[in-house]
């Protein structure tokens, strides 16, 4: 490898948050339409949240739709039903709702390990879906929650409009940058090391004196918070909350995106989300049954490329680029 390529690899590995933010700052000008870039950003964040639990802690959640959807509904209900006019309050309400739900459901789901955990997370997400479906007065039920206003962002006394696609993209990017920075700090901290220890051998981590259940619950809540932020941003992007945002297919999207990109890597979820959305965008124009192709590609990855696109790339690179990147198991 040439020296400049190695230097680039080193930079990417040393400043992952900067690289992602820089990339997404330029992305709206590289894709056919700007909302695709924002979609990649928001779903990438959603997959990042899922990846914190699956890729770094080894807990396979099949119910992240609950946190994405509650983030979406929390923001939507506060803005559309309670007539709150502050974008800050709306966003934070959604994120807080997702975090609280993560704490409650996490408590239940973490009573069982392994396979049960996946089933339990799925069951609780489905519970939320049915509640949203039936509580039509509050959620709009089957029609989804409509009438979410496009509000300007109040910033130090200024009122910044974020309603154009490009302005909203940078607004969302600001939030994602904060989330990624926080995530990076957590992963680099001793707490992050304990997460990896739990993934590799939960019993041994417990024997070392770590309160494994508490650490897992914290990871669960953090993961739910990230998914909730993604859901809240998606609500502002769409100005509508479809009831499907709580359906299990939304949970499946996080799984597919993360696995395609590479579980347990920092960039993987974004690579996976971008790949998934581009595939969806292209395939749905070509054939009606495009989910078959997505399903087959996903099966191919599970069978032959379990490290995903980014994880496989990393495994093929020399240590320079992968030194700071915790490799997928």
């Amino acid at each position, binding site marked *: 490898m040439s020296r400049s390529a190695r230097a680039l690899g080193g930079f990417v590995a040393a400043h992952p948050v900067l690289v992602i933010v820089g990339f997404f700052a330029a992305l709206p000008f590289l894709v056919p339409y700007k909302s695709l870039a924002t979609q990649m950003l928001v779903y990438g964040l959603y997959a990042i949240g899922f990846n914190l639990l699956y890729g770094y802690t080894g807990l*396979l959640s*099949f119910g992240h739709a609950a946190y994405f959807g509650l983030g979406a509904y929390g923001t939507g209900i506060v803005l559309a039903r309670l007539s709150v006019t502050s974008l800050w309050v709306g966003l934070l309400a959604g994120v807080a709702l997702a975090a609280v739900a993560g704490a409650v459901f996490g408590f*239940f789901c973490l*009573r*069982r*390990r*392994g*396979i*049960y955990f*996946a*089933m*339990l997370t*799925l*069951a*609780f997400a*489905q*519970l939320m879906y*049915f*509640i949203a479906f*039936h509580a039509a007065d509050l959620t709009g039920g089957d029609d989804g929650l409509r009438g979410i206003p496009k509000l300007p962002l109040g910033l130090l006394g200024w009122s910044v409009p974020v309603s154009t696609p490009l302005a909203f993209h940078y607004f969302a990017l600001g939030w994602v940058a904060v989330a990624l920075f926080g995530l990076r700090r957590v992963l680099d901290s001793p707490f992050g090391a304990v997460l990896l220890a739990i993934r590799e051998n939960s019993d041994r981590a417990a024997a070392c004196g770590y309160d494994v259940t508490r650490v897992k619950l914290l990871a669960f809540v953090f993961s739910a918070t990230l998914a909730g932020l993604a859901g809240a941003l998606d609500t502002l992007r769409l100005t509508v909350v479809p009831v499907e945002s709580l359906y*299990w297919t939304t949970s*499946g999207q996080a*799984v*597919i995106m993360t*696995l395609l990109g590479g579980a347990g890597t920092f960039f993987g979820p974004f690579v996976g989300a971008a790949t998934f959305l581009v595939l969806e965008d292209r395939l749905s124009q070509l054939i009606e*049954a495009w*989910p*078959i192709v*997505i*399903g*087959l590609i*996903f*099966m191919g990855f*599970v*069978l032959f490329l*379990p490290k995903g696109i980014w994880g496989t790339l990393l495994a093929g690179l020399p240590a320079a680029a992968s030194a700071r990147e915790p490799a997928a*198991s």
Partner: protein
Amino acid sequence: MAELTLTALGAQLFTGLVLGGILVLLAIGLSLIFGLMTVVNFAHGAFYMLGAYFGFFVLGFTGSFWAALLVAPVMAGIFGLLVERGMIRRLYGRNPDDPLLLTFGLSLVLVEGVKVIWGKVGLTLDPPRELASVVDLGFMLFPQFRLFIIAVTALVLVGLWLFLEKTNVGLIVRAGSRDPLMVRALGIDLGRVWSLVFGLGIAMAGLAGILAGPLRGVYAEMGTEILIESFVVVVVGGMGSLPGAIVAGLLIGELVSLTTYFAPKAAEIVVFVFMALVLLVRPSGLFGEPGLAE
């Protein structure tokens, strides 16, 4: 709240038994497959759906519901066996989540594939003419076909019990789910037993599908919600426990049926509330052993 009469209550209890029977057929297959090879089959609901579609296909071909009832589960079972042989087998010894992920992908492909072949609109599957009328149970009238579902479920359970307890292969299955290494050390080819049990579990799912088709309609997504309910049954009953799957399946069937009667909107929710309560009191499920499958 609807007025409570003994007849109406009896009807709901019997309806609950029918739903419970279908859940038991699905949950036992899941539990059996998991108990032996620690694979969570996420495509179980898709195979349930395939059973109904295969039944529709055979019915259209032969004109006989009875032929469909016999052939469709076999077709589903062979399909399942091939899936185990061709794909899931590659994943043994890897991350225990991998088979779940693979079968999740498979379920997407099957659900969309069925839409391509049979169309997006649901199909109707009529019960056989011999079972189209009602039976007088003394205190109420009950559709024959629903009674038939209860009978078939009971028959399959007795057959499965005989297979597991009285045959040599059943002995290997039981031993293999307890200590596969030891069974292999005794010179037994567990791989063939795995394929067989996987096929058997799928055939039971297919049977549940063709039985449920005339009641609940045949459509591509028919398997997804009942799959999640079956997961709840397995969690409540205790993973890998066959008596647990039966008791929990019937309990949840009754619970859903009675809630549908008293508070229809809560029927889909009560299942999950019940599961949360069981988990609080007995984290390993009603019949589960602590520590199994963790």
